[in-house]
């Protein structure tokens, strides 16, 4: 609030004198050391260029303005307003040039890395596109690596990212709508979609939701994701994200809408369907039969990661008659002497594993390794030998964890991790009966979810036979001549 009142107190229109301009700018920005006011003469006319060191690079602009060109002599003879026009049309060699007549315009341009040229005698200044941010180059996407397929990943620069997508879809129908969000951060946001392929209803819905965003700051795409997702309290993600340009390009080609945010390599995609979280870009780069089998394997992993500990608890404490006799004798032998009930045992092991995972994730790589060694040794062997947990439980927890890692989307892995504990508690209290009820509730919940108005379980519920070619399985490209996944609400 303070900000706004202070702004309102200041005058908006630019002055005519350089000294007044610089003085006012300094009041607005304070004594920030990175803002450079470079005064120079265009022929005989004094001018000043303003930019932020590090964000803008006006080297070529300064060179252009220092040229001993006959134009500058002519400049003196022009009226102040024509001087600006002449500079803009004839002298400045940069691609992006425009006029700025108010302080807020100047402010905005300077902050986004442009350079503002103010010439004495007129209240119209020019801004020149000189953004040049030191940034990470295009590197391999670390969160979704593939064996076969493009290695590029998005970077933190929005422009770079839109270019990466554009390079893959060289079509005039690829549209980019830009806007800024964040009261303080003024973060650039780009909505990318294929005109004609993207559903206009979904697009309108997205625009409304983006317009409704009231945030002070946007530093990562999750800020946006949380604001636009349909269900705040569902453990399942209803917005997909990826840092791979090829994934985003294919999503856009399927009629989905991508949201790119300045400052993060993670790009959002809406609408996101349940099946999407089980697809990897590599499914399309490998043979279709293999891809289909791998996809089925992922659904199996989802089941394993979600259910194994609770199934183990339910069967070993309520339904021993379901086990084959030989398995029962071996399980009984292992559980002999374990002091805790199966549920407590499972919770201890699962929590220990979560601790290890959390500890390992943010540590430097070299220390992370020793954490995992200690973890395996301590938990895997010592705990079993000490008789604290049974060997079978270690197997159950490890297969659960490994299956969890096999899920291609990290955020659906998180939902599984959360739900697993709930199912374990239900299994410990009500056995398989409780688990089935829990799963029914889960199924109902999944079917009630929507992403931008599109049912989350689309292609299963409501069932779409045509899109089955690329849902549970990935059939040969000959069978998918048209884009199958065109999403409609």
């Amino acid at each position, binding site marked *: 609030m303070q900000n706004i009142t202070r702004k309102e107190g200041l005058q908006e229109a630019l002055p005519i004198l350089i000294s007044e301009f610089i003085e006012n700018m300094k009041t607005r920005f304070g004594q920030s050391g990175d803002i450079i006011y470079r005064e120079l003469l265009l022929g005989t006319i004094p001018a000043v260029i303003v930019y932020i060191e590090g964000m803008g690079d006006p080297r070529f602009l300064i060179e252009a303005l220092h040229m001993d060109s006959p134009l500058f002599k002519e400049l003196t003879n022009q009226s102040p307003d024509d001087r600006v026009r002449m500079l803009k049309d004839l002298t400045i060699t940069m691609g992006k040039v425009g006029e700025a007549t108010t302080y807020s315009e100047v402010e905005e341009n300077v902050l986004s890395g442009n350079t503002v040229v103010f010439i004495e005698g007129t209240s119209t200044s020019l801004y020149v596109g000189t953004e040049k941010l030191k940034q990470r180059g295009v590197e391999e996407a670390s969160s979704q690596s593939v064996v076969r397929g493009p290695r590029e990943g998005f970077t933190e620069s929005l422009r770079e990212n839109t270019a990466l997508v554009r390079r893959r879809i060289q079509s005039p129908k690829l549209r980019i709508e830009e806007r800024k969000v964040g009261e303080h951060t003024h973060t650039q946001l780009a909505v990318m979609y294929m005109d004609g392929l993207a559903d206009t209803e979904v697009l309108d819905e997205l625009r409304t939701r983006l317009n409704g965003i009231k945030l002070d700051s946007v530093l990562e795409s999750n800020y946006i994701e949380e604001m636009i997702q349909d269900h705040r309290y569902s453990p399942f993600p209803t917005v997909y994200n990826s840092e791979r340009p090829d994934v985003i390009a294919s999503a856009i080609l399927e009629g989905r809408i991508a949201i790119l945010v300045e400052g993060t390599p993670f790009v959002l995609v809406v609408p996101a369907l349940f099946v999407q979280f089980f697809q990897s870009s590599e499914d399309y780069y490998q043979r279709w039969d293999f891809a289909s089998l791998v996809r089925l394997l992922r659904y199996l992993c989802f089941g394993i990661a979600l259910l194994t500990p609770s199934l183990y608890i339910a069967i*070993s*404490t*309520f339904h*021993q*008659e379901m086990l084959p*006799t*030989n398995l*029962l*004798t*071996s*399980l*009984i*032998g*292992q*559980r*002999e*002497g*374990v002091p805790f*009930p*199966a549920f407590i045992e499972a919770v201890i092991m699962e929590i220990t594993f979560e601790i290890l995972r959390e500890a390992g994730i943010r540590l430097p790589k070299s220390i992370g390794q020793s954490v995992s060694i200690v973890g395996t040794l301590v938990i895997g062997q010592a705990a*079993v*030998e000490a*008789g604290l947990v049974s*060997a079978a439980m270690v197997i159950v927890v490890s297969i659960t964890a490994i299956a969890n890692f096999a899920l291609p989307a990290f955020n659906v892995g998180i939902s599984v991790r959360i739900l697993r504990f709930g199912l374990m*508690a*239900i299994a*410990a*209290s*009500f*056995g398989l009966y409780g688990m089935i009820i829990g799963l029914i509730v889960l199924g109902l919940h999944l079917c009630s979810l929507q992403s931008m108005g599109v049912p989350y379980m689309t292609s299963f519920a409501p069932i779409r036979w045509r899109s089955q070619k690329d849902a549970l399985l990935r059939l040969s490209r000959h069978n998918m001549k048209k884009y199958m996944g065109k999403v409609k609400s």
Partner: protein
Amino acid sequence: MLGRTILSVLLMTSLIITSGCWSRKELNELAVVMALGIDTHKDGYAVSAQVLNSSELATKSGGSIGSLPVVTYKSVGKTVPDALQRMLSMAPRMLYLSHVRVLVLGEDLARQGVSDVLDYISRNHQLRTNFFMLIAKNGNASEILEVVTPFEYIPANSLYSSILISEKKWAATGKVTLQQFVNELKQSGSDPILSGVQLNGSSAEGQSVENVKKISPSTLLQHAGLGVFKGDRLVGWLGEPPSKTVNYVLNRVESTAGYVSCPSGGIVGFTVNRADTSLDVMLSAENIPRFSVKMEIEADINSVQCPININQPSAIEALERSIEDKYNENIEKHVKDVQQRYGADIFALGEVLHRKYPQVWKTYRSHWGESFQSMSIDVHSHVAIRRIGSIIQPLNQEVDEK
């Protein structure tokens, strides 16, 4: 609104916790009964239960004190559940019956009738219906459950797998589950059979682990033919050849071995690889049923102990014919024998008639026991020899030729 949601979630969570897992039983709170034996006793039934001694199964060292992996508890009660309850005065854990693999009935009990015992066994929800049933021939069930067996250190498992393998490869035992037994018992057109088991050696020596520390254990469990039931009472035992006949007629033979004599003296041994039997019934003009047994047998020659020229197709054909004759003759003889001696329809001929001619069956239903004895049965077998093994001529013939 939010407050109410939180409250209801809390209440529902407390529902889970306060109800307290009432049917929960941890694995290490169970005494898993692997085999159950039931004998007669003057005060009702003597029940013996072979229970898993789970601390001996522990893979880690420390829990084990070197005792045997099973314990057999014995107790007496008016009813079987009564005796099982009394067993808890000795057993430290709850008896868990779902994993019973074999039910052994003493011969005395079997001769008195097994219905009363089976009533409990079928009624109890914990017991599955797919375990095997055996009769302790010439002895008590408890003796059978007290023998330490080689290979499988849980004797019940040993008994279980030996039933499976002997039924599959030897064909003179019966793999009869509770389900099957009760079905055959309750059908009016059939009588059940049960396989017998007996001790080969002394009971006392078999009880200790010393038994299996020898290269040739002094006491072993041995399958001993089929027991014939009339209704729920054991009426007699069949030897090995009649037992095979029963399995042939009931189409339960998977593979077995046999021999046939050569025309020129000596014998030829064969293995049966596939045997398919179909029972059929025809009515004569006076509505008298006449049963026929059709058998399709595929056999391999496995040993030739006589001088025949086996590379002649005619010799093979002659062998096939003589095997067929042997089958026809033996099976007819054994069936007659069962008809005459026991009058128990263990071949389920009554059911065949019932299914094909329900109207005719009605006239026989009430007195099938007697009528069965006079039914005539024809046997038609067809034998095909498929393989003669890795060599052609008999070794002794080659020796002669030199």
